[in-house]
């Protein structure tokens, strides 16, 4: 961009010497003093110079718009998990243990092995896994989203053949390898299912209303996940369905974490 330093414009525009400040001087004032408050000489120049008026108005618009932009943003939870792990690894912090100094050593092990803690950690892993596969861009969509019932590959001939990468053909008898995203999603689903196994025996919240609400919602989410999976079986290319399935997994992960955190204890 060609840049020119403005020179003498104001003098030409005001041959009678009206407006003792020139445009360059106004700019210097704006640079050093900001947009408000303007000294009288600057205001007088603005009243008479259309170009500087436009310039000043634009800077004011930019400043006003900028003030509407969010000054803060919520960091994702994984940032704190990662930070905590790093600080613990460096020895800067020690993991908080809910034990008294008098707790016998064998009891401290029991604390760590307490099922609820493990379940909470499992739910945390679920959330991280969910976060990982949600951040991945989907690859070619020609495969099932859920792996568990993957059919066995067709028998190969006796002559030893090297592994062949089969292009995605729907009716092929050889089941092609799923994409990393689908595999991650399937693994995430399996982890969620495992975490869910500990739920039925839990007295979740000690409150029948909350307990019932949590279980009902878990049932709702599972039904929805099954619906999405069924749809994706028939239409594996459907991006919208995949997005909904991902969201449903994430909701389930958060729900399980909330259930395990809300005072659950096994009967």
């Amino acid at each position, binding site marked *: 961009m060609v840049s020119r330093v403005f020179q003498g414009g104001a003098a030409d525009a005001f041959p009678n010497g009206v407006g003792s400040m020139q445009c360059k001087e106004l700019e210097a004032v704006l640079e050093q003093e900001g947009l408000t408050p303007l000294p009288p000489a600057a205001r007088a120049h603005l009243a008479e110079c259309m170009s500087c008026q436009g310039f000043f108005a634009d800077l004011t618009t930019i400043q006003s718009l900028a003030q509407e932009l969010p000054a803060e943003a919520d960091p994702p939870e994984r940032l704190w998990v990662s930070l905590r792990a790093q600080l613990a690894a460096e020895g800067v912090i020690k993991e908080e243990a809910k034990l008294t100094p008098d707790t016998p050593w064998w009891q401290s092990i029991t604390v760590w092995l307490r099922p609820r803690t493990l379940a909470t950690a499992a739910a945390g892993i679920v959330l991280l896994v969910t976060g990982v596969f949600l951040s991945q861009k989907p690859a070619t969509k020609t495969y099932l989203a859920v792996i568990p019932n993957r059919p066995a590959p067709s028998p190969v001939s006796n002559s030893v053949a090297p592994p062949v990468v089969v292009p995605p053909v729907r009716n092929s008898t050889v089941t092609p390898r799923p994409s990393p995203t689908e595999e991650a999603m399937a693994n995430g689903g399996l982890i969620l299912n495992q975490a869910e196994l500990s739920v039925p025996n839990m007295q979740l919240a000690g409150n029948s*209303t*909350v307990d019932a609400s949590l279980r009902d919602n878990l049932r709702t*989410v599972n039904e*929805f996940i099954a*619906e999405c999976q069924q749809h994706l079986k028939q*239409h594996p290319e459907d*991006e*919208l369905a995949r997005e909904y399935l991902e*969201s449903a997994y994430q909701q389930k992960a958060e729900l399980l974490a*909330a259930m395990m955190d809300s005072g659950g204890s096994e009967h």
Partner: protein
Amino acid sequence: MQPQGILRIAFSVLGVGLLVCAAAPAWGGSPEHQERHFIVKDHPFVVLQNIVNGRIEVKSWKNSEVVVSSTSAPGQVGIDIEQVGDRIEINANSLEPGSEPNEVEVNFQLTVPEKTELQLRTQTGLIYVEQVNGDMKLQSVAGDVHLKEVSGYIIVKTTGGTLICTQCAGKLEFTTISGNAQILQPTLTSLNAMTTTGNILYDGDFMHTGMYSMNSGRGLVEVRFSGNDSFDLKAQTLLGHVDNQAAAFLKPDTHGGHHTVSKFSKGLFGTVGQGLAKVELSSYSGTIRILKRD
């Protein structure tokens, strides 16, 4: 006095006594009320983790003071409040040995300066916030969340609770599994609402340059806009249907780009006015409805 008269009086006294007992609160005694005051400065931050059940009500005033009032059954709940600078943290704990924390109930009323940041959490009770301008994170399992004339960066999460947001401003994020959302007369610049089985209703204007995303798995997503609105619309549903009652106001999308709808979904794209805001509606199997308010 005649024996019959004595009997009559005795029965009357008993009857009144029974009535009084019936009218007495189920807590088995007069409720315990506590109130504490905290002086704050510019930007107070109030955290309330109500592990017991109960209602949380927050209103604002002009004073640089936070007032925390609580009502509960006598001797059942301990309220711990800690103030560090402008941060006030409130925790409710069950005092009864052996009782489950979530069986006990305490209701909170908070009065805070207008510019207060809030972080509130409850299980089944209602969260009600009115005329507070500050970022807030509100969580409930089964309880509803009602917001009125609040502004800020508002995050609401429920499992089954419904959000009713009236005349709210700023940015709103709402996620729920089975709850509904009603966003009425908002002046939000950003909205992200997601529910699996609930319904979403947006009845209000769209701000210029605002971005609005509403997703429901199975429920209804309904948008009612006004004649002054200006937005680009992208609506798609997989198994549901799009009920476009605003065809007369929707022009072909003017902001460049061909919208591609997947062959599996039904889509509706268009522009109202100059398309200055961006509205994305999505439903897996529910209905999407767009109509203009009279």
